[in-house]
């Protein structure tokens, strides 16, 4: 049986009929939100680790540049950052489609916040860990790679989980530049049928379910990666 036929069986104008009718489009929007969130958080993860390393181990120049970046991003609204990228970059002949702009914008934004979590985690690792690694003949980079980062990545899981959930929810601002994610999909549907309350109730419910699923997965990951004696201090 086709989806449309299934919906036909429900009472006209009822909430269930509405939900059934718009479900395919909302699922499409949710998939885009998911893609946007994952790519942005991944970009933010890579950028955040580099920025944190720059702030902890970098020379003066690297420290200054990474600190300025973090301050700028955390000190300005994410919407302004999105507009800079989506509407501002074409000034330099760089034209991005709205989803790509949103991924880059949210990713660069998240990088600054993740950098602070990683910096906190790295700095909570005792100095002796680095000394011990250097004492057996490791280079600075080897020590960071095999001793410091594996510990920092575990310590950072709880605050990082929050960042992932924030990014998922914040990704809704991408609707303003027209990225076809969940929020934008709801907006388009509601502006046609004027059933704002019901549509956004469903949208809110979908966000909630996504957040709960991600929280659960992160909990499981945290348990799996747990090592005695290695917690956020």
């Amino acid at each position, binding site marked *: 049986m086709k989806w449309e036929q299934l919906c036909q069986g429900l009472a006209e104008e009822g909430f269930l009929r509405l939900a059934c009718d718009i479900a395919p489009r909302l699922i499409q929007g949710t998939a885009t939100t998911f893609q946007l969130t994952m790519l942005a958080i991944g970009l933010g993860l890579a950028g955040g680790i580099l920025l944190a390393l720059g702030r902890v181990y970098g020379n003066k120049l690297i420290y200054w540049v990474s600190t300025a970046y973090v301050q700028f991003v955390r000190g300005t609204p994410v919407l302004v950052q999105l507009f800079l990228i989506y509407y501002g970059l074409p000034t330099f002949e760089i034209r991005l489609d709205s989803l790509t702009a949103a991924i880059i914008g949210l990713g660069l934004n998240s990088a600054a916040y993740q950098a602070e979590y990683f910096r906190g985690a790295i700095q909570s690792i005792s100095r002796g860990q680095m*000394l*011990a690694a250097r*004492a057996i*003949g490791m280079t600075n980079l080897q020590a960071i790679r095999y*001793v410091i980062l594996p510990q920092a990545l575990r310590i950072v899981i709880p605050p990082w989980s929050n960042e992932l959930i924030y990014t998922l929810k914040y990704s809704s601002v991408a609707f303003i530049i027209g990225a076809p994610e969940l929020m934008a999909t709801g907006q388009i549907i509601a502006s046609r049928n004027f059933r704002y309350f019901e549509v956004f109730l469903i949208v809110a419910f979908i966000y909630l379910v996504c957040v709960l699923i991600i929280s659960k997965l992160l909990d499981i990951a945290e348990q799996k990666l747990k090592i*005695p*004696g290695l917690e956020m201090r």
Partner: protein
Amino acid sequence: MAVSSKIIVRVEDLHKRYGSEEILKGVSFTVRQGEALAIIGPSGTGKSTLLRCINRLTEPDRGRIWLEETEITSPHTDINKIRQQIGFVFQDFNLFAHLTALDNVRLGLLKVKKLPKKEATERAMHELARVGLAEHAQKYPAQLSGGQQQRVSIARALAMDPKLMLFDEPTSALDPELIGEVLQVMQKLAEEGMTMIVVTHEMGFARSVCDQVIFMEKGVIVEQGPPEQIFTNPQQPRTRQFLGKISELYGGAGR
């Protein structure tokens, strides 16, 4: 404890300053192959600084250090190569907190010496057995007692097959009942002919295990000699005062 005539470490006129304070004011000594050298002295005297200068975890300001024929302090020396040949045991163990005992010992073999996994594992297990901890190989540092952690850290250093071992107050962070097991491992090492420099407040160990004792104070070597001289017939009044105070603090030099 056969001490050969071959010189393993030579330290010449070592100076180090932190800010306006000169911590090391020209320290010189040599250690021969198979020799165990104890360095004693009040805290804040620069003993840790001296030890860290030897593998350049701290950069000395002036003076030269050799490991056999290689000048450690030369800017052309690959310090990471040198450090593989010098084991360092820290007061607070500094075991890698995210790794099991086995992985702590194996990490340097895999990533620094680049041994194949099977060989590294065998070598690491051998070193753990040597310090009596083979059955704890899969435990994390937080699951081990202080004494066990320090023995793992000794195994970690030994696995790199060093020419020289440096111990910086290896038992000072331990509960009294755990000190013995660590000293025992160190004594065995000395008897097997390992060349070692031990900063310690364990006068019993310095006296019965070490071949030479250096008494350091305020950045200089006040007195140096075999343990019989230092402990029974010190030539300097400062040495005598320090040893008197130590036996008050720690209940005699007999431990």
